[in-house]
């Protein structure tokens, strides 16, 4: 018996010793009963931080190229296997499965391996099941949030989500902490100073509800539903993450350029990250501002107590010129439009004649640049030929709203510190907030108005503006598919909505995860897939238009909040950024660009 055990021990050691390096190996993940675990998320991280020149206040200086720290995530198949290339340096593997305690192994503590029939190394990894408390604590924000009923007042909950869930997750562990009513009220006041618009007369009620309902959940955690199980399709893909910026950054929108780079905007530090997804190298371009411009731009600095902030412009949304590949960027804190030439790496600033808060931006086939003006309830069109702007006023919903919109130039004439600010009321701002925008195959421009619950159509030929009611709450961003269907996410209603301009009919689709609050979406026109940004469930979601089937993709970090999603026309790769604000609340405390691609040829476990 002793001899047999010794042999069993020696065989893997001997095999490991003679195993050739540079080849793939398999991680075989199982539970303590020896049962293989499928859909285990295995993330490989380089153990040593990549050396980088971060001498510009913690960031790469303008024009300097660094290499990003990179992670690679794959999922085990039904046999519990996942393959990786052999270690090329000190790396760490984190195995994460729903209901199991994360396990970390690395170059220094990798369990012994054996060889399979083909001679390839197989490393066994055993995961330990969570206890009840650990299990429930591990659930993502959305399932906890789903159990907050706000005393049965659905309207109030919607209002809370609209105003409080656009920066960060709402029911993460540190939001569920017990707080006194006064402490909750203090949180609301602080968040309103950062830009939330939670009505003052709702503070006390919501504070009391959050206190009592979180207490109730802590006492009865069994009522919290399990998150959606991870599914088999995950073993067919891999995710790569590039760490860019730091814990104070906020990587907002981005764009995939035909030149092969991905351009990501750091919304809080006026920097453009040019990332080569083939190499992981990135170069930072600092967006120039005028000497008289101040932090926070014309909106004023809402983050005065933050340790560092460099948002004179507020790099927000991106669109590419179909003519010359220049990138147009909305600087939300100025009356400007930015143009970046990826060949010369130079910025050009186009002064706008009016309008406030340049927001989401798209280009049309005629190389015109369209973007929403969120505060002034307008849509702007920049004609690249004439270099002139045309502003389209979207209608006010009331005389009061019209008066507010008309008085914006007067209001903005005041210094931000002395500017009159109306107290938030139960319609949040009194402003309709045009938000998402896209251009249809027929050239028509479509716009959502977040607070007004309507959509606008602009006919560029006639300049006619048509408003259409949106029968759901919170139309945030929209995208248009190859057939001209308008796809919209309804933020508070947790829905994907399709609008058929031909029939004026809406179709709505329940999201596959409970109480997700979708921020944005995109359409893979070639493959007929709608991709929806998750922000409460640590997932992103895909919806096959033809079959109306969903797939759910868990993100490799907890508190992963996505605001933009792009699909590579070339290969269908899907990109998103972790845009939780503040970033340091995300797992790992750093922002990342993430790419999902099919598993490379030959990597699938044999």
């Amino acid at each position, binding site marked *: 018996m002793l001899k047999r055990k010794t042999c069993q021990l020696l065989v893997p050691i001997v095999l490991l010793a003679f195993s050739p390096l540079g080849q793939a190996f398999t991680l075989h993940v199982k539970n303590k009963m020896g049962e293989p675990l499928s859909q285990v998320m295995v993330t490989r991280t380089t153990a040593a931080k990549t050396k980088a020149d971060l001498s510009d206040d913690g960031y790469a200086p303008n024009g300097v190229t660094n290499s990003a720290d990179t992670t690679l995530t794959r999922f085990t198949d039904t046999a519990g296997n996942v393959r990786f290339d052999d270690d090329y340096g000190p790396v760490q593997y984190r195995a994460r499965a729903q209901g199991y305690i994360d396990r970390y192994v690395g170059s220094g503590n990798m369990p012994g391996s054996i060889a399979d029939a083909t001679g390839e190394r197989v490393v066994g990894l055993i995961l330990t099941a969570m206890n009840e408390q650990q299990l429930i604590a591990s659930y993502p924000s959305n399932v906890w949030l789903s159990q907050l009923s706000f005393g049965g007042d659905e309207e109030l909950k919607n209002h809370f989500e609209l105003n409080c869930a656009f920066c960060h997750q709402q029911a993460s562990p540190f939001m569920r902490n017990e707080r006194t009513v006064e402490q909750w009220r203090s949180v609301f*006041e602080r968040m309103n100073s950062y830009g939330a618009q939670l009505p003052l007369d709702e503070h006390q009620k919501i504070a009391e509800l959050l206190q009592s309902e979180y207490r109730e959940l802590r006492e009865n955690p069994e009522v919290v539903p399990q998150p959606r199980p991870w599914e088999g399709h995950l073993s067919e893909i891999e995710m790569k993450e590039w760490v860019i910026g*730091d814990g104070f950054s906020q990587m907002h929108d981005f764009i995939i350029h035909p030149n092969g780079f991905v351009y990501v905007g750091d919304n809080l530090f006026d920097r453009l990250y040019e990332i080569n997804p083939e190499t992981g190298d990135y170069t930072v371009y600092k967006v120039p501002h005028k000497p008289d411009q101040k932090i926070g731009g014309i909106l004023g600095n809402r983050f005065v107590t933050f340790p560092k902030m460099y948002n004179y412009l507020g790099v927000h949304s991106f669109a590419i010129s179909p003519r010359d590949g220049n990138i147009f960027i909305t600087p939300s804190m100025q009356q400007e439009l930015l143009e970046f030439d990826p060949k010369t790496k130079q910025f050009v600033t186009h002064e706008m004649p009016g309008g406030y808060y340049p927001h989401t931006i798209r280009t049309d086939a005629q190389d015109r640049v369209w973007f929403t003006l969120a505060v002034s309830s307008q849509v702007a069109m920049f004609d690249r030929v004439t270099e002139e702007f045309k502003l389209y006023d979207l209608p006010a919903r009331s005389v009061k709203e019209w008066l507010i919109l008309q008085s914006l130039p007067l209001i903005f004439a005041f210094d931000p510190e002395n500017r009159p600010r109306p107290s938030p009321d139960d319609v949040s701002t009194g402003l309709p907030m045009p938000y998402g925008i896209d251009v249809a195959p027929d050239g028509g421009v479509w716009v959502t108005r977040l607070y007004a619950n309507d959509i606008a159509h602009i006919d560029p030929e006639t300049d006619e503006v048509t408003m259409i009611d949106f029968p759901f709450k919170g139309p945030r961003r929209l995208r248009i598919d190859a057939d001209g269907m308008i796809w919209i996410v309804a933020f508070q209603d947790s829905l994907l909505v399709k609008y058929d301009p031909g029939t004026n009919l809406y179709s709505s689709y329940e999201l596959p995860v409970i109480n997700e609050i979708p921020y944005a979406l995109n359409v893979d026109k070639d493959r007929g897939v709608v991709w929806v940004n998750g922000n409460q469930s640590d997932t992103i979601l895909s919806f096959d238009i033809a079959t109306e089937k969903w797939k759910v993709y868990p993100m490799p970090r907890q508190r992963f909040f996505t605001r933009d999603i792009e699909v590579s026309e070339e290969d269908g790769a899907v990109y998103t950024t972790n845009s939780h604000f503040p970033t340091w609340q995300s797992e790992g405390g750093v922002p990342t660009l993430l790419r999902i691609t099919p598993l490379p040829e030959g990597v699938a476990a044999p």
Partner: protein
Amino acid sequence: MFFRKAWPLMAVFISTGVPAADEGWLYYGGDQGGRHYSDASQIDKANVSDLDVAWVHRSGDVKTFGEGMENTSTQSTPILLPEAAGESLVYCTPFNRVIALDPGSGEQRWDFDPKIDRRGTRTFRCRGVSYAEEMSVAPNAQCRHRLYLATHDRRLWAIDARNGEPCRDFGTNGRVEIFGDEGYVPGDISSSSAPTVAGGLVVVGSGVIDFSRSTTPRGTVNAFNSRTGELVWQFDPLRGHRNSGAANVWAPISVDEENGLVFLPTSAPSPDYYGVDRPGDNLYANSIVALDLASGELRWHFQHVRHDLWDYDTPAQPILFEWTKNGESIPALVQVTKQSYVFVFNRLTGEPLWEITEQPVPPSQIPGERASPTQPKPIAPPPLIDSFLMPSDAWGFTPWDRGNCAKQIASLNNLGLFTPTSEKLTLMYPGSLGGANWGGGALLADSGVLLVNINNAAFTGQLIPTPPENSAQARTDHPESGERMQVTMQGTPYNIDIGALMSPLGIPCNPPPWGKLIAVDLFKGTIAWETALGSVHEMGPVTAPFHITWGTPNLGGGVATGGGVFFIGATMDRQIRAFDVDTGDTLWKYTLPNDATATPMTYVYKGRQYVVINAGGHFMFQRGYGDYLYAFALPE
């Protein structure tokens, strides 16, 4: 360096004597688990307003030491010895004199002066002495009943509890030198809390110089044989960390003798505000460390601050109690912290009884500083302080000073608790004073209600790049009242500038109350009530003729009683107060000659309940000093 010696057989013949008397006060914290609770109920809610002075004792330190008293902090809580040990009320003065009194009259029976080495600038304080009956010594023989005293100059004394004479069989003529071969360096390291005596051992922590150096002395905890003074084991909380020091245990230690566990509240590693040279979590600093009492081996630990950059020592004695919830009873431990969290554990296993979450916290901007990305936070009870302070929260007497405070707050780095200090002025709220501090909490019988006094004054701090030749003067303690201090952190590229966040009028910029008393329901995980603790009527340029109850910074703790009353001094208004434990209403107060920055105790002697408190002031408050011990009782 962990060090262990054979456990002497003698230990089995030793005990700490009688268990805590229900109406006595045998230990610094009332019992070995520091509950600060007495069953005594003669004084109750209905009659506490009749309380009056029973007697006053003066130690004579003022007469003896004169202006030397300015560098003292009177923090001692007396203990009441059992009848077999002489039934004296015993306490220590800041200069480590031990004085035994008649508990009924306050008349002095004996005193013992260890004649400490008073060199150095370190502040003098003594929180208490400890008692044990040495069962291996013949009944009625000298030193059968012993008192243990850990002194400012790092000596551990054993003296006879009945007459104050040194025990000749302990160390050298009754004393053991704790500093070892490196010798005593005045000002570097001292002892202030009462030693812990249990299982035949005397366990002693230390106070170590704050701020000044990157590598301060190690914060090694020593356990000595209670009969002989022989060293039995040592525990260095910072084992393996070379470029650091301290993580010492200056707050009182708790012990669960039945389960053979001793609980150490460890402090911050050095230097306090710069951690580049001590990467990682810095275990076992800023922790509750449970050791096997007999061997000193680690049983479990919980680190409540990882890679401390804020001087968030574990400031108070871990409180041991029974957790009863849903019909289940668990031996538990509750720990209050400077950052104003309340952590509750199964004390046998370290398993949290309220889930502890990983709170993401902001990164540091100091080159090379890897601040921990997360810090532990209990899901309940709630923090005792709302640690965010926004410009709109600024407070002032007038629009002018309120506006000034708002501008100051707006100019600070401030992302709430655990914002790392940087080269820009950064909010430290709570500051190193707490939150909670060494007064700790009092647990109300078996109710699960913890009464805890906290400070609520915002501080600011800034790292000042400094060439080594321009280092500021070394300091030995924290900023005094209203003071900004800049001290060196030798061995680092910075000095640290720290002070209270004040308006031009010298008023805290955060809204009052600046001191609070809070009742925390540990079983429900909620705050039952809270009230302002202290009046500012004496803190202005002129003393107001009436109390202004906005709370004051406070140091010292309180005692809860079976009469439903909580007694506490601690404040900067010379008051001792009695509160209703159910409502927080003030039931009684008395003006003492000095601030009573000590924790009161209570006992029943010959059928009469007394409440006793030291009133000698605290150097940090800069409000005068004295040498008073006050006893209160109902009229006979």
